[in-house]
Each structure stands twice: as structure tokens, then as C-alpha cells.
């Protein structure tokens, strides 16, 4: 499909349709008026906004999107500072029955607000920049993981974070792994080892084309699975190799999600440029891109094409998949899971579908797939937002709102019989743990246990 044929939001092409993708870098100059004109003020978006539900002072997505856009274009008004209270959960986006590109408007307005109205030496700006650029700090932290974990855990550090930077002291900083995923991957022999393992698996499975290069994926692990939860990334590797896929791990930057949410569009642009370049090369090499974090895949698939137009942006969007979804479509995943079991380690799960998975039509997937495994039941804990939304719930001024939004999910988790939580989003997982004290797992880890065997056996691989 050429770019010219790119379908509109609902895939229906038509003469009257509006195409929101315009040329960067002048995000502020993007002409979103036709999109704003599509709004017929039904307020469906407002009834979906988790922030407006608990915070009287937030004017809601309809105001942030089409109304603010119209006001601004008419009399050169400044962007309203309430746009910083939006958590970028993108629920409004998938709610609007009239194809108004709400999150694109919010991202653009936030970028403009930060660029033009925010004091660059202010505590808020510095704090937001630090939070948004987590990936730049993470390598430092993971160089001395034990020291960092110790220092971050000190109450004095937390107090400093709160007082000096406005990072809430209520939360525990995520721990750094003693070995990053990429370190593990290199030690294991990188792509070459993966190729061998994949071929062996194909031979064992009796796949006809043992030497074919067709089964190849490029893994976008994102920051969190690399620095904090390499076990999720390793699970992906083992599950994919089990199906005979050869895995590549291209160079990559942060997906940009925290940067969009903080209006740091220039930072996001730099990261996106690297990601698009590297992933596009992998695609040219015959790989499809898969991601294990739903916000990363959302970013590559939706936000990049909405905000950037590097060579290959569309190509990357069209060839990026959620890790479980990819297996469902390309393999008989459920068939393979039939009659497997996972031992005592896992039992039932309280599952929360992240907003960014919901927006991609992946909300029911995990419960569908896990139902095939003997003795495992994943109970959906309802459609509420977890409330943390990436960096949002880390800010001292949002902490309370974040916990109010999450309250419904905490209640439902506690009502459910399961005592282990399950989700595909690293920050949702922090919030679930923070609000209930439950241990939280990733779907890929359950698949690994079912398909590849127990953890000790897997570690040996």
C-alpha cells in the first residue's frame, strides 16, 4: 500500500475524508482544523476521560482538543495550561465516534505549551524533562544497580525528590536489574545464536523450511524491559524461538511515549528518528517488528505517523505488532497452548488491560489466550484506567488524582479471587502493585512457562 492510499482512521476512504498527517517539524503549524470541525459536541470523549471524572478542575478532552483548537486559531490565544493535566491515556481518542484526532491535538498543544509558555529553568520543566528522558538516566543507574537501588530507596532521596523536583515520595522507585536484557543478549551470542536456536526449533517442530529466513522478527524491547524487567524480554525471546523465529535486537531509543505526555516533542523526534531508521532497516531485512509493551507499540503505530514523517514512518507503523497478537495471527498459538500447564508458580490472575492496549483492540486478547492453558484463569478486572499513565502519577501534584482514578481497579483486583496481577504495561504494573501489594506478571512470562517449561529450565537456556 503506498502512502497515498493510507486509509483514514476507520479505514474507509472517501472524498470528504480528512487526512491529519502533515509535515513536521512545525507541529504547531499542523492544520488540524478540519479534524476540529468534525466535532459535533456529543461529549462522548468527556465521559471517557478518567481525569475529568475525579478532578473538577480539568476541563476535559473536548475542550483540550477541538474547542481549544478553534479558539486558538481565531484569536491567537495561548494554549491553556490545563493541557498538562491530561495523562495521555488516549481513551478519548478511541471514544470519539466522529474521527476527531484528539490525542494528536493534545500532543501538539502540549508541545506548543512547553515550547512557548514553560519557563525552561523552572522546577516543573526540569522535573518533566528528567521523567521523560528516563532512558538517558537508566544506563547510569544500571551500571551500579545495587548502589542505585539502595540510594533510590533511601527516605532522604525520596524526600529530596519530592521537595526539590516534585516527584512524589509515595512511590518506590523501580529497581534496576543486575544485568540488562541487552547485556544478556550479547553474552548469549546475539543474533547468531538466535538464528541457530530458531533453526533447531524449526527442525524439531518439523517446519518444512528449516533454513528459510522467513521467520524473523525485530524486537523493540523499550527501556523498561531492558533495564528493569529483563525477565519479560527473555520470555519473549524464548517463546518466539520456540515457534522457530529468529530474533534481531536492533539499536533503539525510548519509544517516545513519556516525551509526548510531557510535551517534549523535540526529544521525542530525536528518539523516533533513530527508531524508525533502525526498524525500517530490519523490515527491509525481512523482519516484522514486535513489542512487549503496549505503550511502545502504540507509539510506533499511531503517534509516529500522526506527528512525524521520516522516511519509513508508515512502513514501521504497518509492520509493528504486539508480541502476543503476532503469534495469534501467524501461529496456532491457542492450539499450541491447549493442554499445557504452568505448574504451581502461576494460578489465577487479576488482569488489567492497559489503556494503550485497549486502543489497539487488544483488550480481550490476554484472557482469550490464557484460557487455553490448563488451570489458568485470567479475570479481567474491568475497564477502568489504572491512573498512573507513565510519568503522570509520579508527579507530586498528580499523585492523588492518579490514586483516585486507580481506586476502581484496586477494588476490582481485591474482589477478584486471584492474588497475582497481570498486565502488559510496565507503569500500570507499578500502579497495580502500589495499590494492592500484589505481585504483577507479564503475559509473556506466563506463555513462557506454558510453552518452554519452568523457570529453572528456562534460565539454563
Amino acid at each position, binding site marked *: 500500500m503506498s502512502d497515498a492510499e493510507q*486509509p483514514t482512521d476507520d479505514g474507509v476512504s472517501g472524498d470528504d475524508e480528512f487526512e491529519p498527517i502533515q509535515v513536521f517539524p512545525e507541529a504547531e503549524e499542523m492544520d488540524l482544523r478540519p479534524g476540529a470541525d468534525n466535532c459535533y459536541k456529543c*461529549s*462522548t470523549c468527556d*465521559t471517557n476521560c478518567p481525569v475529568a471524572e475525579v478532578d473538577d478542575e480539568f476541563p*476535559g478532552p473536548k475542550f483540550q482538543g477541538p474547542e481549544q483548537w478553534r479558539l486558538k486559531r481565531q484569536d491567537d490565544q495561548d494554549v491553556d495550561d490545563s493541557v498538562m493535566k491530561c495523562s495521555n491515556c488516549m481513551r478519548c481518542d478511541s471514544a470519539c465516534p466522529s474521527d476527531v484526532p484528539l490525542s494528536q491535538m493534545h500532543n501538539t498543544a502540549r508541545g506548543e505549551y512547553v515550547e512557548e509558555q514553560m519557563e525552561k529553568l523552572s522546577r516543573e520543566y526540569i522535573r518533566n524533562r528528567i521523567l521523560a528522558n528516563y532512558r538517558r538516566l537508566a544506563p547510569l543507574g544500571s551500571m551500579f544497580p545495587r548502589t542505585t537501588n539502595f540510594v533510590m530507596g533511601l527516605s532522604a532521596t525520596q524526600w529530596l525528590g519530592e521537595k526539590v523536583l516534585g516527584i512524589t515520595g509515595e512511590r518506590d522507585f523501580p529497581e534496576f536489574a543486575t544485568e540488562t536484557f541487552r547485556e544478556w543478549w550479547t553474552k548469549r551470542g546475539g543474533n547468531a545464536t538466535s538464528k541457530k536456536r530458531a533453526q533447531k526449533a524449526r527442525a524439531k517442530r518439523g517446519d518444512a523450511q528449516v533454513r528459510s529466513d522467513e521467520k524473523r522478527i525485530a524486537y523493540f524491547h523499550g527501556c523498561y524491559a531492558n533495564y528493569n524487567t529483563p525477565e519479560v524480554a527473555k520470555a519473549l525471546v524464548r517463546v518466539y524461538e520456540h515457534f522457530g523465529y529468529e530474533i534481531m535486537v536492533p539499536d533503539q531509543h525510548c519509544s517516545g511515549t513519556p516525551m509526548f505526555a510531557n510535551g517534549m516533542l523535540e526529544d521525542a523526534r530525536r528518539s523516533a528518528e533513530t527508531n524508525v531508521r533502525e526498524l525500517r532497516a530490519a523490515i527491509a531485512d525481512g523482519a516484522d517488528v514486535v513489542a512487549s509493551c503496549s505503550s511502545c507499540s502504540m507509539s510506533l*503505530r499511531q503517534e509516529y505517523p500522526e506527528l512525524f514523517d521520516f522516511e519509513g514512518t508508515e512502513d514501521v507503523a*504497518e509492520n509493528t505488532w504486539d508480541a502476543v497478537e503476532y503469534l495469534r495471527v501467524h501461529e*496456532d498459538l491457542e492450539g499450541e497452548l491447549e493442554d499445557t500447564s504452568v505448574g504451581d508458580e502461576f494460578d489465577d490472575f487479576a488482569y488489567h488491560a492497559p489503556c494503550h492496549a485497549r486502543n489497539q483492540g*487488544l483488550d480481550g486478547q490476554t484472557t482469550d489466550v490464557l484460557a487455553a492453558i490448563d488451570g489458568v484463569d485470567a479475570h*479481567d478486572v474491568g475497564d477502568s484506567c489504572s491512573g498512573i499513565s507513565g510519568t503522570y502519577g509520579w508527579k507530586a501534584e498528580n499523585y492523588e488524582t492518579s490514586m483516585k482514578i486507580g481506586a476502581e481497579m484496586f477494588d476490582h483486583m481485591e474482589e477478584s479471587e486471584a492474588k497475582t496481577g497481570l498486565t502488559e504495561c510496565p507503569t500500570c504494573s507499578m500502579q497495580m502493585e502500589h495499590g494492592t501489594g500484589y505481585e504483577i506478571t507479564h503475559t509473556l512470562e506466563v506463555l513462557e512457562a506454558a510453552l518452554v517449561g519452568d523457570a529453572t529450565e528456562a534460565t539454563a537456556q
Partner: protein
Amino acid sequence: MAIEDDVLVIGGGIAGATAALAAAERDVQVRIVSYKQSTLRNASGLIDVLGYTPAGDGPLADPFEALAALPEGHPYERVGSEAVREALAFFDEIAGDAYQGSHTDANALVPTHGGTVKPTARYPTSTAAGLASDDRDALLVGFETLPDFEAPLAASHLEATGAPFAARGVTVRFPGIVRDDAKITRYAHLLDHDEAVETADETRAGEPTAREALAETVRSHLADEARVGFPAILGDDRADAVRADLADRLGVDVFEVPMGPPSLPGMRLEDLLYEALEAAGVRVTTGVPVVEYETDDAEASATGPERIDRVIVDRNGAEIPHRADQYVLATGGLVGKGVRSERERVFEPIFDCHVPHAADRYDWFVDDVFGDQPYARFGLPVDRDLRPLDAVDDPEFSNLRAAGAVLGGYDFAAEKSGSGVSLATGYVAGRRAAEGCR
């Protein structure tokens, strides 16, 4: 590979949800794929079957009497009045205590936010104490920050309609809400969680909770009315508890007056249906559209209609095939975007099913905005099995049925038949789809 099920329903509004539930009664695997949120979020939550005839006569006391006289091609004529009854009974079972009206064929008369009285077949229990046929006097309470419900005006309109009771309206401040455009979900959340609120009353020690403060505010206005009506913002997840608590504190019955869009009773109905879907084991995929289909050439006989093999779901450019044995199209009308119009044509975007309309777009509407608008009836013509028909009245596909607002031949706004048609056709389409599975 494709994602496989027996019955695939496209669209998750009241028509799609009902079709999926009806299909799931049989031993088949059912999935819904729905793109954006349905019109349920805007609908009043009332289940109207037929309030007025297509000729404009009414309000009708008994919708069933009028069903027999509907013109050929009307969705009710297609499925037959027995199916309408069955569908309502099916709905009653799903809704349980949440809905009332099943005790009689006659339409109930529910006061609306404009002070008119609407004939409807089923109504949420939250509105039950407010029925216009009830002769107890009523106090209507509106809020300064919620301009869509002018209680004094609604009360005087109600009296003017000849309601058999005295109605009085007052406008008060909603404790805890400052913003004049706070979202209705904000009101509901305050009451659901009974959050502490600030009130103007300086003499009180500590902060009262939202329910306490609201009851307090209203009590001083209550004369000897036996019931109090509020706009429909009394809670979302815990609406029953909120209403009971307020009634308890006020010592009178409490009811909700259905509001215009967006509407909490509509959202509660949506929740109720989606809970039923989960309990029935229906798989639900939302946020992504179905964009295309592929036929099964090997199976199509030379003369018979084509058979749909799979449909394609678009996920930001990646194409995800979904295959089923039978398909139900419940994508809504012009509002839900199941039927679309461009300058030159009106069309159904997924399967390009035939949508009859005048060639000249100036014939699509009449100048009188309140006139009988042809565009209001745009939609698919179907046979009695609800299979869409092409221009020469042959089924478009052997395994596709259509239900709800995507159907043509009726004007839901004028007839007050929206949810009823979606329910009846959804029920029949779902049941037949399950029966058609190999």
C-alpha cells in the same frame, strides 16, 4: 492463520451486543469487533419500541397493536411482532432488576428533561418512581451547573401536558461542584464514592459527604411532595445505592429524569450488556475497525450469493484477518457510521451493500427541517432472514445478516423506535446466525 470464531458480530452497540448474546445461547463461539463507542453512550437508556406510527400518529398507548400495520420493509415487519416480543423477553432476562415495564404491553409514560412525556416499552428502574401515570406530587431538582435540566421549566411543562399530579421545580447548587462545565461523570463519581465535599454552610463541623450534603440541600425545599426527581446523574457503578441512600435521607421516593446526550442511563445499559457478554463467554475486541472482506470463491455456486470467508480488521495499518462461519453487520446508521454519505452517494463501507437512495442529492432531504426526511430512512434493505439485499432483491451474501440502525426503512427519531428495532433485529440476526453455523 486468522483469528477464528463461529459467529462474528461487527459493531458493539445495542444491536451488536444483543445479536452476540442471542447467538451465544447456542453452543457456538461468538466474537464482537467494534470500532468506536456506540450510540448507547448518548441514548437515554429507554427501550422505545414504537411511540408514533410512521405517519406520525401517537403517542401510542399500545405499540403492539400498531406493529401489524407497518409498511413492508420496515424492520419490525421483516422480523414479525412475535420476534419483537421474544426479543423483549430476552432483554428482560438480561436486565433483571435494572429495568421495568415487562408487566404490560402498554407503553409507559416517562417524563423527560424537557418536561415532555415519552412513550416507552422498558425503562430503567431508576426512573420508575417518576412515571407520569403515577398521581403523587413531585418536586424536580435541577443544578446551577447543569443547564440542560431546568427544573422549574420542566415542571411547568409537565403540568401543561396534563400530568395527573402537581409538579414543582427548584434549582440548587450541587455540593462539591464548582466548575460550570463539570462532566456528568464527575457528579456520578462524587456520589458513587460519597466523597467529602465543601459546602457553604460554615456552621457545620467537618466536611459532609456528597450524598449527605445533597440531601441536606434538597430537604429545605421539600414541601409535602411524595417523590423527588433529579437529572440522571445519580451515580454510575453504584447508582442503586446512591438513590436508596438519598431516598432514605429525604424520606421520600427518589427518581431520575432521563437526560440528553451524553447520558448515564445509556452508559449503565452499556455496562449491563457488556457484563452479560462476558458472562456468556463472548469475546470482545474494541478500538479497531473492520475494513474489508474476502469471499470464498470455491464455495460460491455459479448462481447463488457469495460467501464471506474472512474480514480484515485494521490495526493502524496492520491487517488482522478474522474468520467466522456467520457474520452479523451491526455498525449503526449515519451517526454510528455504518452508513456513510458523500456528495455523490450513500454507501455501506465494509461490504458495499446496496443502500437505496435518490440519484440527486437534493432529493435526500426536504427543506422543512421537521419534515419527513428521506435521509432518516437510509439504510440496508433486508429479506425476512435479515440478509442484506442487492438492487434486484437478491441476498448480497449467503452468510451475512444485518441488524440495528444500519437497516433502512424506518426513522427511529420520528417513530421513537431506536432501541426496540436494534433489540428485535439484533436478537433475530444473532439467533439465525448461530443456527446457520455448520
